[in-house]
């Protein structure tokens, strides 16, 4: 890493410390997973990560994360819109509360959601007579993943909506566009990159989530068992190789999503700068 001449002191110290700390805490430990997995033959690895129970967990994890992220994309956009465009009593408090899923420990969220959606819980007891079971089913997983991903879309879309100039909307109105046309043709095109980014962040967070899910999921193999739980189960059976193999699959997916999100954010920033 070569540096252009700069008179401010501390470059070597700060960059050196950054790289050292990053390596010790993050890079070396992460590489341990890959090195450990490489002791497996490709066949063994493939066998472990495609076992029926593991495949079922992928389906649940990705399916529920996708549904949760979609719900968040819709309601997150709605929430951001309402918070930016309208005023109503208690708006500031609501705005602050959007971050609750970031602040509330996941285990607490898990047991709280379970209590609400179980048969005799506040909401569960309403749904039960209609034959809808939430707690201890895949539906419960969706609920938990929706909760923990809720702030992402709101917090990525909100600033973009705030920066939108009313003038363009006024121009559209003056040219005879109705409100719906203005939204779909003028407003939506400017916020969709942020919306996709928020969706991707929410999805990525949901895939790795553990704490809030295990309480409400019921954790039935093949039905309501998420991939992180598979890792834990294998670890508890001292199947380190198996746990590591599944972890490597999850890591690769996380890396891919991280790159995708960074690319999206880069794209969004560049677009916004161009528009300025």
């Amino acid at each position, binding site marked *: 890493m070569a540096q252009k001449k700069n008179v401010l002191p501390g470059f070597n110290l700060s960059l050196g410390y950054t790289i050292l700390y990053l390596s010790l805490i993050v890079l070396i430990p992460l590489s341990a*997973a890959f090195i450990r997995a490489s002791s497996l033959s490709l066949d063994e690895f493939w066998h472990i990560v495609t076992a029926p129970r593991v495949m079922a967990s992928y389906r649940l994890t990705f399916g529920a994360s996708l549904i949760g992220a979609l719900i968040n994309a819709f309601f997150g956009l709605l929430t951001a819109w309402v918070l930016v465009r309208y005023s109503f009593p208690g708006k500031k408090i609501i705005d602050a509360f959007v971050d609750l899923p970031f602040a509330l420990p996941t285990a607490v969220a898990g047991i709280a959601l379970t209590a609400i959606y179980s048969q005799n819980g506040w909401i569960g007891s309403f749904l039960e007579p209609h034959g809808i079971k939430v707690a201890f089913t895949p539906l419960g997983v969706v609920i938990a993943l929706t909760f923990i991903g809720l702030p992402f879309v709101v917090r990525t879309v909100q600033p973009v909506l705030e920066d939108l100039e009313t003038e363009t909307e006024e121009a559209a109105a*003056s040219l005879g566009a109705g*409100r719906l046309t203005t939204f779909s043709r003028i407003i939506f095109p400017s916020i969709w990159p942020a919306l996709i980014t928020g969706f991707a962040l929410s999805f990525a967070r949901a895939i790795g989530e553990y704490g809030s899910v295990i309480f409400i999921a019921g954790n039935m193999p093949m039905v309501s068992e998420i991939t992180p739980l598979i890792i834990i189960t294998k670890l508890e059976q001292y199947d380190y190789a198996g746990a590591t193999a599944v972890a490597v699959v999850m890591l690769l997916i996380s890396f891919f999503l991280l790159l995708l999100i960074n690319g999206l954010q880069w794209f969004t920033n560049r677009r916004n700068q161009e528009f300025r």
Partner: protein
Amino acid sequence: MANTSPSQMTLYRAKVARNRATSEPAWIKYSLISLALLFLSLFLFVPLVAVFTEALRKGLDTYVTALSDPDAFSAIKLTLVAALISVPLNLVFGIAASWAIAKFEFKGKNILITLIDLPFAVSPVVAGLIYVLIFGLQGWFGSWLSDHNIKVIFAIPGIVLATVFVTFPFVARELIPLMQAQGKEEEEAGLVLGASGWQILWRITLPNVKWGLLYGVILTNARAMGEFGAVSVVSGHIRGMTNTMPLHVEILYNEYNYAAAFAVASLLAFLALVTLALKSFVEWQSARVPTQIEDIS
């Protein structure tokens, strides 16, 4: 200062300008607000209220007993220890990283920023697992550690490590964009005036980013105290020894001791509320600073 500041004027104008041409009919507006509020109450308020009602369901006595249990007390202590170690470590890292990234140009900077984000992308369970692979009995240093009678996994060091990992990026992520936006002119001015590197850092750079710094610390602390997945993998769940508050909640819950579980959970929920309040305060403070411009001519 005159009774209407320029910024108030623009706000006022913006409100007036948002006339019928650029707003929705009232019925749409109120339906949208209601729908959003319904969603938020269902997903945010109901769970939060549930924590406190469940905690107090069996009365205040049970609540107090649950919290004064020695195991609960040691869980609280361990949670505080984990936070007290990981917050300063990641704070120092965040300052070093943002100094290097925001004040200097070097190749590979974008890669470095992406790598700093990595812990956010990794599942907490995987975060716990990688430390087991290194320090666990079958891990790289497993036999060396057990020969020297040092326990990392299923002990406090492992819990701290896992906590440091999951809270790794928070401070850096807050500071990097902030320091990049502020440029380096003030630091250069300090340099020309004869200040040393540390003097520049202490007297110029850090005071300028203090709210961002505090914001990062608040987020780090909240996550450190609430982390479950990563800590769960490395903890071993030894009551009174290696249980953090969230893990203690799980144990009580799995023992069907719901009232006690929710009692401990209510402490964590309270902590979350404090976090949100502090966060809002910091946001308000940092937004306030630039608006004191030009009250004289």
